[in-house]
């Protein structure tokens, strides 16, 4: 019986006669536990020697497996490099069996397998172009499918999966509320601080209220809320749908006759579009509150005058403009999150890529559409 001690028991002896003939005698086992030692030992030993022939004596070998075969293959390769002959002696029956089982004779002659060659630059350029084109195509297809799904829901409101929608409203909205409140409050605080340093020089402290409220309701409130939602929920949508894709759940839905987009994407999109404007409203309020704290405690403004200035600055249009922007952002976040989820192919790594991509392209879309809004407003508003 083998014990732990004699697992390391392969001993090999090398002897060299005068004519450059080396004999390697292997005793005991040659297997997974010691073939690496033998391979490395031999290449070390032969580094400065130029043998004419190597005779490997396997007479005293007791145990032999594919790692042993490997050791012999490597030794034969080494000899071929040195242009020496290689010869096996006293080969036992089980060793012969094992050698033929692993095609010892042809093994070292086959070239090491070729890595997939990198295709030429033109081919990669073409590949990339086709890839981008097909990406746009599937984006368009998906936006079409989403629009059809939403249209269907508008026409048949009962077909909306209400349970799912409420669940996602909770996950995207209620669960995100604390972090959004905290961040908005702090951003309002920071903005008021920074503005105060400049405005104080002109004795224009009261305009801190204008600056914070206008900036938040029109720009920062919607954008910040959208970015937080993209990080929290856009990624979650992509990961969820992606994992369902990997485990063939999406296929199962399809074969059961469900419209997968209507089933998976529409509730998420509807929920997000409904709750994100509300989150934005909270974000606006808390940022103004943050500004108020700075105004009252640092700038000697009264609560009344701060609030009055805020009300004077803001028009209803500003608030609604901000909220409608945030609804558009919400749609984009949920849409791209679901789209990236449906794009998953293969395994776990692909889910990770899609999740990253959902957040990155979500944030990009938010900023891009915000820029478009700014331009429109400049010429129209």
């Amino acid at each position: 019986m083998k014990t732990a001690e004699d697992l390391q028991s392969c001993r090999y002896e090398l002897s060299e006669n005068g004519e450059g003939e080396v004999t390697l005698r292997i005793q005991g086992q040659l297997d997974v536990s010691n073939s690496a030692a033998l391979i490395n030992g031999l290449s070390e030993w032969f580094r400065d020697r130029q043998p004419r022939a190597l005779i490997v004596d396997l007479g005293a070998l007791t145990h032999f497996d594919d790692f042993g075969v490997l050791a012999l293959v490597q030794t034969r390769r080494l000899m071929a490099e040195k242009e020496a002959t290689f010869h096996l002696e006293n080969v036992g029956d089980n060793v012969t069996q094992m050698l033929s089982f692993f095609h010892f004779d042809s093994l070292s002659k086959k070239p090491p397998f070729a890595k997939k060659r990198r295709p030429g630059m033109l081919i990669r350029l073409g590949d990339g172009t086709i890839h981008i084109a097909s990406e746009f195509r599937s984006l368009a297809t998906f936006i079409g499918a989403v629009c059809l799904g939403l249209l269907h829901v508008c026409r048949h409101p009962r077909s909306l999966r209400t349970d799912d929608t409420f669940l996602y409203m909770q996950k995207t909205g209620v669960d995100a509320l604390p972090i959004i409140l905290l961040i908005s409050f702090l951003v309002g605080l920071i903005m008021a601080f920074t503005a105060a340093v400049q405005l104080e020089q002109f004795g224009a402290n009261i305009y801190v209220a204008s600056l914070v409220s206008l900036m938040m309701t029109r720009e920062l409130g919607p954008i910040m809320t959208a970015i937080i939602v993209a990080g929290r929920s856009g990624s979650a949508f992509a990961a969820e749908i992606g994992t369902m894709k990997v485990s063939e759940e999406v296929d199962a839905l399809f074969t059961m006759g469900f419209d997968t987009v209507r089933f998976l994407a529409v509730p998420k999109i509807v929920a997000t579009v409904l709750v994100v404007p509300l989150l934005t409203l909270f974000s606006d309020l808390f940022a103004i509150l943050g500004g108020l704290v700075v105004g009252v405690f640092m700038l000697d403004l009264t609560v009344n005058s701060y609030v009055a200035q805020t009300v004077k600055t803001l028009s209803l249009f500003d608030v609604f403009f901000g909220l409608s922007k945030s609804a558009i952002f919400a749609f984009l976040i949920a849409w791209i999150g679901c789209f990236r989820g449906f794009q998953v192919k293969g395994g776990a790594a692909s889910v990770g890529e899609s999740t990253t991509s959902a957040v990155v392209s979500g944030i990009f879309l938010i900023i891009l559409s915000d820029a478009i809004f700014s331009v429109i407003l400049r010429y129209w508003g």
Partner: protein
Amino acid sequence: MGKQALIQVKHLVAKYGEDVILDRISFDIYEGEIFVVLGGSGCGKSTLLKHLIGLIPPHSGQVIIDGYDISKCDEATLKGVLRKIGVLYQSAALFGSMTLAENVALPIKEYTALPPEAITTLVRMKLDLVNLGAYENHLPSEISGGMKKRAGLARAMALNPKILFFDEPSAGLDPVTSVDLDNLIIHLNKSLGTTMVIVTHELESILSVAHRVIMLDKHSKGIIADGDPKYLRDHSQNPFVSKFFNPQTAGEITA
């Protein structure tokens, strides 16, 4: 081949929460044998396997592999024991981001001091062994289910473990592929002397592969049969056992 118990299970109790799945079962698996755990759905086959490979610690009782109690030994010993086993999971569990060659090379690179060129050769030997020599640069998502199983087997065998565990090796395979896999299992057992522990309920494969089987039962939560599958098929007195082995004639026997 000595009759040395390689795996000993002693009074193993498996529980999920309050549900007892296995109640004080004991058996030995000997070196070099092909041992099959069988039973109907929900009888705890996969649970037993997870206990044997150390994924779930037993509620009580012992699992002793090659002399070490895997639920009580320290981490270093456990790692040593895990080096002696290979597992083929039901879905093959190949790493999706790596090619087949990289999947097989992973444990070899980690645990041996072989030079890169030797690893390449060894990986090809392993993949040739399961007839996947031409697919070494394919990703798991690019090959079929049966090929994934075989690639998973090549990876499980990468370090020539003493014991190979199979979780439902023929699940989801066509009959021809599944017979091929059975033959491969027999072949590896003969040529390398690897002990095989297989969890399955495929009758055909049990009869052609197994040296010895145990049968688990859902109601008694224990072992209701132990022995040579062909003998059990023809001579078992237990109605459940003979029903399992002779599903067609089951009606007459239980009547």
